[in-house]
């Protein structure tokens, strides 16, 4: 049967340019990714629950993967999968004991499979064995277990056979029920549209109320559809969390630390873009906790804690936002070392003692490190500022909570969806700008007496000096400032600030549109949206805007 699959594979492979083959390959990749993740999870679970158990589901997954790889002509993958299958059969028959070493080997075999089929490797390349080595080790383990019936020599294969040529499609599995409902709704919307068009064509026959009512009918259907489509984009965060079980296991083994990885809130749903983009920050935080937070078993025992530490990844909803936490029960932030380092770097005055919030700002600063030596983990040239930047690009915030000797909790607070935000519209001259509502605290009128000409100024807000930025000047829009200006008070890291605008237009849902290649990544702008009249309005990136002003402020002349 295998031969048949292989033959089919070769047949397909002989004509590598057909779009059909590309489609099959893309489908295979999407499936393989899932199968490999299942395999990895299965192996990790197997390690945790030592004892006789059924491996049938693992073997089944492996077998399906093998079939798929055969169909797209990946002979190497078929062979490796076959080897793994043999080995796992032995484990099931208890001819081999699954110890940590074998566990690592099996997991590395999964990595090799991942590489062979053309999926990005999941773990650090430095910690991995080359494919041939893994294969050799697997073979020798298999031989050591029991005399194996001699297998035909491995046929020679071309080195390029497994070279991936197809880009992986980003796919999403959607419940058929949801899709059916969407189709229903689109059908109903088209009926409503038809009816409205007919009524409008003979508008004299109807009252404006009747026409409006017909429009509202369609509108309701449309809103249902919008909600449904948004829901389809949501995926459980568990898929993002899962790979970290492996990361924690591997790092624990490498560093001689005993760590239990706990996941909670895996079924909390997030936008698929968030699930994707949160991976990097989480990797940093997990590595950071493993490297600096958690202690070795000896140290833990000396401190009266149980030798096995715990690292939890949690997700939950809180007040309309998504919260993701990385919690460890390690040593906690070393305040003295951070303070000392900050003073050395000149980020902190000699007498200042920062609170937790200030401490966090320090460790998230670019280039900040208290690592005394560069380890494999902390010398990778990337700092915690990456966490901050990634989370902020998702319009989220980072906070930290740490008790000395008891552990550290990093909390990432993120919006539920990226495509729609609550926005606050303001106008300057003919232009409309949208400020994300989460940044807006209040709106006040700027009294003419307190208005200062120029790009920036300050204003007394209930006795406190509030600095403000005049958008008209900042964006160089020209025109003259009206007699009455309004201030939108926005909150940011360092406190409050104001944005001076002509008119306040009020809040509403804003659908975010990317600005396109030429206008992307401009400071102070995070995207654009379409207004009711079809014009494009720009969405302001408040933290970046204020950062820009701060950087532009000339340093005070020193006496």
């Amino acid at each position, binding site marked *: 049967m295998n031969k048949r699959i292989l033959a089919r594979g070769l047949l397909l492979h002989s004509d590598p340019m057909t779009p059909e083959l590309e489609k099959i390959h893309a489908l295979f990749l999407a499936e393989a990714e899932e199968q490999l993740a299942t395999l990895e999870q299965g192996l990790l679970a197997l390690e945790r629950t030592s004892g006789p158990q059924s491996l049938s589901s693992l073997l089944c997954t492996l077998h399906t993967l093998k079939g798929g790889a055969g169909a797209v002509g990946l002979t190497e993958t078929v062979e490796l999968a076959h080897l793994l299958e043999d080995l796992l059969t032995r484990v099931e028959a208890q001819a081999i004991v699954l110890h940590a070493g074998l566990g690592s080997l099996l997991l590395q075999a999964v990595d090799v499979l991942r590489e062979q089929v053309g999926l990005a490797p999941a773990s650090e390349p430095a910690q991995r064995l080359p494919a041939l080595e893994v294969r050799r080790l697997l073979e020798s383990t298999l031989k050591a277990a029991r005399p194996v019936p001699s297998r035909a020599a491995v046929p020679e294969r071309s080195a390029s056979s497994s070279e991936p040529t197809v880009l992986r499609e980003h796919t999403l599995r959607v419940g058929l029920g949801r899709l059916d409902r969407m189709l229903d709704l689109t059908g109903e919307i088209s009926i409503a549209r038809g009816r409205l068009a007919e009524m409008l064509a003979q508008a004299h026959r109807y009252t404006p109320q009747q026409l409006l009512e017909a429009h509202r009918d369609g509108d309701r259907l449309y809103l249902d559809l919008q909600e449904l489509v948004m829901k389809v984009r949501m995926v459980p965060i568990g898929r993002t969390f899962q790979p970290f079980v492996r990361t924690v296991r591997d790092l624990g083994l490498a560093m001689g630390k005993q760590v239990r990885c706990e996941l909670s809130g895996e079924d909390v749903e997030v936008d698929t873009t968030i699930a994707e983009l949160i991976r990097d920050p989480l990797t940093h935080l997990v590595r950071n906790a493993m490297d600096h937070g958690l202690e070795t078993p000896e140290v833990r025992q000396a401190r009266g804690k149980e030798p096995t530490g715990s690292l939890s990844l949690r997700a939950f909803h809180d007040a309309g936002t998504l919260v993701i936490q990385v919690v460890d029960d390690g040593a906690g932030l070393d305040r003295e070392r951070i303070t000392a380092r900050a003073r050395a770097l000149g980020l902190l005055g000699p007498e200042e003692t920062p609170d937790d919030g200030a401490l966090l700002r320090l460790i998230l600063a670019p280039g900040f*490190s208290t690592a005394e030596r560069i380890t494999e983990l902390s010398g990778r040239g990337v700092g915690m500022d990456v966490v901050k930047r990634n989370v902020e690009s998702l319009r989220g915030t980072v906070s930290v909570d740490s008790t000395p000797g008891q552990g550290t909790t990093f909390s990432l607070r993120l919006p539920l969806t990226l495509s729609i935000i609550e926005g606050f519209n303001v106008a300057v001259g003919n232009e409309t700008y949208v400020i994300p509502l989460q940044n807006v605290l209040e709106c006040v009128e700027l009294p003419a007496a307190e208005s200062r000409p120029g790009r920036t100024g300050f204003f007394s807000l209930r006795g406190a000096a509030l600095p403000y930025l005049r958008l008209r000047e900042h964006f160089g829009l020209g025109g003259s400032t009206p007699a009455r200006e309004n201030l939108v008070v926005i909150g940011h890291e360092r406190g409050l600030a104001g944005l001076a605008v002509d008119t306040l237009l009020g809040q509403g849902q804003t659908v975010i549109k990317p600005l396109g290649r030429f206008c992307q990544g401009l*400071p102070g702008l995070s995207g654009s949206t379409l207004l009711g009249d079809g014009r494009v309005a720009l969405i302001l990136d408040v933290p*970046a805007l204020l950062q*820009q002003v701060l950087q532009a402020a000339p340093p005070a002349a020193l006496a």
Partner: protein
Amino acid sequence: MSEETSAATQYLSFILAGEEYALGILRVKEIIEYDTVTRVPGAPVWVRGVFNLRGSVVPVVDLTVKLGLPPIQLTRRSCIVVVEVKQGNEDIVLGLLADAIGQVIELGPEDVAPPPAFGTPVHVDYLLGMGRVGTARKFILLLDIDKVLSGQEVLSATALRAPPGEETERPTGKVA
């Protein structure tokens, strides 16, 4: 770019600063009236702004600025030629601001001459050639739009305006 070099290709011509330029018609997606274009502060100077093309936000490139021609005067005949530009593997849709639309012309290989070494209003690197049209033997400049908006220049134009923090991509160090 093969469509520009194959036999008898159709081109769409448009007017920029009094001169007639043309693009391979397969590049042109549509022509629309110049309507409200939203300015984008901080964008490259040759980006006039963005507009709403049936739900997509599309940038409008002011070719006169990009090519160093006298600046455009908006009139009733001003229009936006929506084109597709290839940059690497990506196809980017963008609008080109033109003074007016010319005509659709058909040019065989014998009608296209290489541009002279100098004397053209636009640098020769930006030209695919010169098309001879009609009995008057008038010349139409064939623009190499991919080159005009090459990725290199696009990158440098935006990099100049990126905040200073952006370049420090990979600071060393790690936190305790």
